[in-house]
């Protein structure tokens, strides 16, 4: 018998089912996880790659969909000099990956919670927020507004689905903020997310929405500072930051 504790969140090998392009540099990867016990929208998993010499690297990836049996999905942005993401964006169906999760009970949305939700995404920070929207389609009664900051229209994840949702769902507003290159029909010139992007009628501090902000650390800090400056209560804001390494 081994001495010591049993890991409480063990690694397990899961199979890649499919991989589809989301943008030129991001792919959505479907995984089959036998015995998956379910998760909450907003949660993430850790993935681990191990080289033949034993060196291993781990990264956290948000789940992009609510529970769907034993299938889970992630969307991975390829970081050119990253250790993990270039491998993940090249995986083929049938390959195995080490995974543990689901993880995190803070940056989550449950259908029974909250009447007004403001989601603010920077780049691939859209992934856990998309899981919340997809959960809302199935269950819940909350009103959502999504503010999604991306460099250009080529960088928008789930573009077609977001377009359909915005058209078909009376509980959803979507505002895409282009930071480098706006589309010809966009009224707003390209630029970083500003106070006017965040505070619109129905979503002011007086309306007291629950706010979820996800993106690179600098983005999250900047948006959170603006929201608090506008009068949003810090206790109403939940954040998830990710780093530059992929």
């Amino acid at each position, binding site marked *: 018998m081994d001495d010591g504790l049993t890991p*409480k969140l063990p690694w397990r090998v899961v199979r890649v089912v499919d991989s589809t392009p989301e943008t030129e540099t991001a792919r959505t990867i479907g995984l089959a996880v036998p015995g998956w016990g379910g998760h909450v929208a907003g949660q993430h998993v850790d993935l681990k790659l191990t080289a033949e010499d034993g060196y291993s690297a781990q990264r956290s990836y948000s789940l992009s969909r609510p529970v769907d049996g034993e299938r889970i999905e992630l969307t991975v942005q390829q970081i050119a000099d990253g250790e993990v993401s270039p491998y993940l964006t090249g995986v083929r169906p049938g390959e195995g990956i080490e995974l543990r999760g689901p*993880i995190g009970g803070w940056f989550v949305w449950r259908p029974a919670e909250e009447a007004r939700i403001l989601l603010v995404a920077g780049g691939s920070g859209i992934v856990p927020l998309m899981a919340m929207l997809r959960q809302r389609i199935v269950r819940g009664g909350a009103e959502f507004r999504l503010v999604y900051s991306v460099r250009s229209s080529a960088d928008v994840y789930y573009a077609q689905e977001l377009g359909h949702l915005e058209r078909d769902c009376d509980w959803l507003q979507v505002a895409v903020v282009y930071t480098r290159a706006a589309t010809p029909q966009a009224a707003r010139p390209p630029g970083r997310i500003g106070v006017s992007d965040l505070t619109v009628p129905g979503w002011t501090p007086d309306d007291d929405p629950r706010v979820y902000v996800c993106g690179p650390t*600098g983005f999250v800090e900047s948006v959170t500072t603006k929201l608090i400056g506008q009068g949003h209560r810090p206790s109403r804001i939940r*954040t*998830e930051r990710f780093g530059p*390494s992929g």
Partner: protein
Amino acid sequence: MMAEPTHVDGNAAAGAFADVLGCDVTTATLTCAGCGRVGVFAETHVYHRAPGIVVRCPDCDNVVARLVRTPTDVWLDLRGAQYWRIPFPAR
């Protein structure tokens, strides 16, 4: 131009802590031993591109927790927090 910050937040360390402690730590409330700030683990600043994980107070930068994994053991240093309050509903 400002350099991009190197930290992430407590969400990114949740897997490693859950593996050892057996519970979700992101919703745990920590009181910083440095400045007395009371806040959830999810909002701490985490530096994890290193041999271990360093968790710092977002207000005063005090190290509130460290976790290091060796091939045989896990080292936990929790001196930087006066206490942890972990949601644990009676069942």
